[in-house]
């Protein structure tokens, strides 16, 4: 509180980022938030818009030079909100500026919002919130411990590796001396441990950090550790070692006494680089991207050139590519894979998490995704505090690694709209709170630090909050049946399947978005049909009370128009179905929608009777995918069609900018 000099400034103008519009209002500075309240004098209909900006979200504050209209203050947030205020008096502006400068750089964890945030819960509720995710149960779900893998207590007291969790799973044949020896040969002591067990083929996904091999060093314990991992899997004679770095970086590390595994020393490995760039490249890439998309009148060419030169989508693609390689090795070949990068907490976390997301439908549910983040990111020690700049630290440690992971998941959800239980708002909300420091989950760099901070006793868990709001994050297209049929996702990584994520990077730029939302329309439809159904049930109950037996019971409340009706008139009514083609609302309705689509297709397309054989007609295009969608109606339509519309990447953006 003592840093706040001016708690309230009146007559502040908020400029829109991409147009010349502006709104007037009052700016309040509190201990935790910067609040802008639009003055509602101009019209009573639109209640004054409020913008709440958490101090932790603010990445930078900039005071621009004084203009005739006032003193401009530009605030950039980590959730990609950019606000441009104009204050009338320079002194106010300076006060706010200097207060913010101090407030957005907390020096110790106790200053973070999580320690003062109180959502009116009692201790028991909070405790339950923290117990929502149980990693021990998660490993049990995978089928571990089993005859080949066991829980080791070697890191019970964080003696072997500080940045790992207490509970670790290793091959049964890996004895304690082997583990300790191996950990001494690995950077930061992060020896190979199990992160995912693919039960079907008994193949394991393991992770570690780079070996301290230098130019020639070797370590027998480490070699027998890899041997043990290999032996634990009878399907394959060898284990893949994926170094997620570009080869050049790995070579350079050798000079510093680190490096990568020499295939000659490890008899049973297949070594491979996948070439994901390091945190510094990623940081500057995002900066460039934000610069490009922030420019006011962006031409299509500038946008595409900028998108390319930022390299952001290239990096996203690299991560997805690596995850696909990992998934193929595990699910197709049945081989175990050891993933590492330099320290094994950035690229390794990305690849392991994304790879297992592709393999296991559980991780594509809301609860499962939380478990995945808890496991591969939080417990295995992704340095959230450093990467997200929670405390005033080294700016070179900041990097959007986790943001990239979320974006990769989003790209996948665009390709497989039915495969994910959550919608993109879930991802956006997680991203919001990784930076908000409002919940304890992401504070600190590793589990040990979190225990020292007593986060479980002093803060609340984000997962409990998200679970309580689960309704808001459900993806209406999700189909559990689809996941059953396609447990392993095989995404296409052709360049044009990667789009610019407008809702992330322009989340707060209202003018950028489509004027109508399909998601909203479908949620409304669903809600309406739910209401209609409950009315129906109530009425039926009523009928029974009155002693009348209902005539029709099994029919849906509003039967779709019959075939004759449809084909008699070529004038189709509004076709909400077509908008969600290939993605029926729920499993139950798959059948019905399938029929409807079928009919409409015949009307519009004079299509021949749908044969069971798949026909490719003159190359591949819409018709082909529709043919497929008769049979399965899931995912294929959208993913195949994406190939037809390569422009997707930029189109959205180009058009989003247009004011018609």
């Amino acid at each position, binding site marked *: 509180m003592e840093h706040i000099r001016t708690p309230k400034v009146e007559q502040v103008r908020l400029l829109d980022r991409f147009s010349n519009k502006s709104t007037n209002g009052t700016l309040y500075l509190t201990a935790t938030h910067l609040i802008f309240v639009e003055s509602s004098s101009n019209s009573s209909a639109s209640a004054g818009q409020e913008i709440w900006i958490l101090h932790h979200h603010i990445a930078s504050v900039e005071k621009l030079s004084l203009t005739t209209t006032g003193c401009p203050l530009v605030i950039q947030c980590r959730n990609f909100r950019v606000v441009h205020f104009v204050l009338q008096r320079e002194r106010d502006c300076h006060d706010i500026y200097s207060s913010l400068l101090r407030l957005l750089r907390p020096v110790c964890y106790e200053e973070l919002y999580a320690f003062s945030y109180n959502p009116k819960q009692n201790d028991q509720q909070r405790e339950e919130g923290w117990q929502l995710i149980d990693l021990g149960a998660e490993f049990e779900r995978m089928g571990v411990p089993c005859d080949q893998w066991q829980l080791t207590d070697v890191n019970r007291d964080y003696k072997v590796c500080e940045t790992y969790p207490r509970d670790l799973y290793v091959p049964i044949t890996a004895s304690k001396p082997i583990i300790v020896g191996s950990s001494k040969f690995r950077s930061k002591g992060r020896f190979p441990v199990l992160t995912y067990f693919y039960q079907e083929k008994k193949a394991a996904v393991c992770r570690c950090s780079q070996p301290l091999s230098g130019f020639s060093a070797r370590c027998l314990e480490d070699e027998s550790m890899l041997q043990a991992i290999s032996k634990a899997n009878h399907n394959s004679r060898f284990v893949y070692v994926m170094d997620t770095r570009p080869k050049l970086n790995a070579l350079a590390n050798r000079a510093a006494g680190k490096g990568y595994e020499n295939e000659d020393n490890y008899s049973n490995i297949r070594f491979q680089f996948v070439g994901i760039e390091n945190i510094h490249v990623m940081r500057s890439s995002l900066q460039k991207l934000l610069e490009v998309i922030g420019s006011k009148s962006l*031409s*299509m*060419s500038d946008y*595409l*050139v900028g*998108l*390319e030169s930022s*390299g952001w*989508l*290239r990096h996203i*693609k690299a991560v997805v590519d690596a995850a696909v390689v990992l998934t193929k090795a595990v699910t197709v070949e049945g081989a175990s894979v050891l993933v590492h990068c330099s320290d094994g907490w950035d690229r390794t976390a990305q690849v392991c998490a994304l790879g297992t997301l592709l393999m296991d439908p559980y991780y594509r549910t809301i609860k499962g995704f939380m478990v995945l983040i808890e496991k591969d990111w939080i417990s295995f020690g992704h340095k959230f505090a450093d990467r997200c700049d929670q405390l005033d630290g080294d700016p070179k440690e900041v990097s959007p690694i986790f943001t990239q992971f979320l974006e990769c998941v989003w790209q996948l959800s665009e390709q497989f709209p039915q495969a994910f239980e959550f919608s993109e708002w879930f991802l956006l909300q997680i991203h919001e709170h990784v930076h908000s420091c409002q919940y304890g989950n992401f504070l600190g760099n590793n589990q040990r630090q979190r225990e020292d901070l007593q986060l479980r006793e002093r803060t609340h868990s984000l997962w409990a909050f998200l679970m309580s709001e689960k309704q808001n994050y459900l993806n209406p297209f999700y189909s559990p049946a689809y996941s059953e049929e396609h447990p392993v996702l095989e995404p296409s990584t*052709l*360049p*044009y399947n*990667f789009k610019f994520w407008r809702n992330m990077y322009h989340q707060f730029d209202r003018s950028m978005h*489509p*004027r*109508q939302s*399909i998601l909203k*329309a479908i949620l409304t439809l669903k809600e309406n049909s739910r209401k209609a159904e409950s009315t129906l049930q109530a009425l039926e109950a009523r009928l029974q009370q009155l002693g009348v037996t209902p005539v029709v019971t099994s029919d849906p409340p509003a039967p779709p128009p019959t075939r004759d009706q449809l084909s008699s008139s070529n*004038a*189709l*009514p*509004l*076709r*909400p179905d*077509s*908008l969600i*083609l290939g993605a029926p609302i729920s499993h139950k309705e798959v059948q019905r929608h399938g029929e409807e689509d079928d009919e409409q*297709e015949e009307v*519009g*397309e*004079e*299509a*021949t009777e749908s044969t069971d*054989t*798949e*026909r*490719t*007609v*003159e*190359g*591949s*295009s*819409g*018709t082909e995918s*529709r043919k497929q969608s008769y049979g399965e109606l899931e995912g294929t339509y959208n993913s195949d069609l994406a*190939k037809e*519309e*390569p*422009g997707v*990447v*930029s*189109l*959205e953006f*180009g*058009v*989003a900018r*247009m004011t*018609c």
Partner: protein
Amino acid sequence: MEFAEHIKTANVEDVVLRQPLHPPSRGTLCITGHHLLFSDREESSSRQVLLLLRNIDAIEKSVENLLGYPGFFSNAGHSERPTDLSLEDQWDLSSPEKHYSQMKELHERWRLSSVNRDYLVCASYPPAVIVPHSIDDDTLKKAAKFRQGGRFPILCYYHRKNGMVIVRSSQPLTGANRKRCKEDELLLQAVIDGSDKGYIIDTRSSQQAQQARMTGGGFESKSCYSRWKRLHRQMERGKSLQESLIKLVEACGDESHNMDRWLSKLENSKWLSHVQTALSTAGLLAECVERDGHSVLVHGSEGTDCSLLISTLAQLIMDPHCRTMEGFLALLEREWVQAGHPFQHRCAHSAYSHARLQQESPVFLLLLDCVWQLWRQFPLALGFSEALLLRLASQTRRRPNTLKRFRRK
């Protein structure tokens, strides 16, 4: 079919089919009088590829293997089954007569003229056109002489909300010595009768318009058309649009899996820039009519490509009826088929073709792309899905005649 006699070998076994983005497959190739048929021999996936011969643009024979490059935009290749369609009804989707009779509000100031009854005044206009009431047919004939290809200004859209209109034509033939035409001026004056001014949206840059004077074309000068304000918006047309599409198609076929290459090729093709220009020009046109409340004349040089493109898009933007399936097809019928877009010249070949024809230009495809973009922004506003757009795209490739036949009965 008479082609059949050219077939030397009807069946070839053991043919390998390689398609971009698909694994190669082995099967039998058959050639018939109208189709090339490939069927997969594998039991599990009986796949068939049916290629309409009409759609094949280029065939190359290389040393080791024979490769046919099919037309990229061709699809939906089941043989047509028009049996259940009665031809008469389908052709009468929309016409100026119908349009006129549906718009009662029009009748006060506009009339239906049959000056072009025998296609003598303008070969590319329909027999009946909508023109201002106060202008008689003789004036129209004279005005037509002053416009390239005889395409004198005619009404294409009436905005119910404020009674403003969109009129389109071809460029005036002012030429180097700044000719004038009293009748043309009169005609345009009649268009904005009762309003203080109108806009002319010229789909060329002002420099291009100046240059056009050297070849007999030109623009409406301020001194002669004092109440019209000219706006220039340069839109790509003709050959460079075709080049752009060829580059885009090439970019789509790139199999290098390289993000940077894809983005730079996409940028280099400029296709999306053209899409953006088209949409923003249409937005401008809609703004002039809807927000400013002024009538607009649209033309480029010939008035058969870009002018149609933006007037169509503007109508989609302004008129909800045009966004229904029926309305959209009627719009296409009016604005493209009857307004004389030379489909046969523009869509003779696909982007794979080696025959680089002067007249080839994917303006219609650009329109479909623009509509698709609108659909992306307003997913609930259109009464049809992208399936219709794909179908239209393939249809114009396959048989430009079907759409065009109507024009010169």
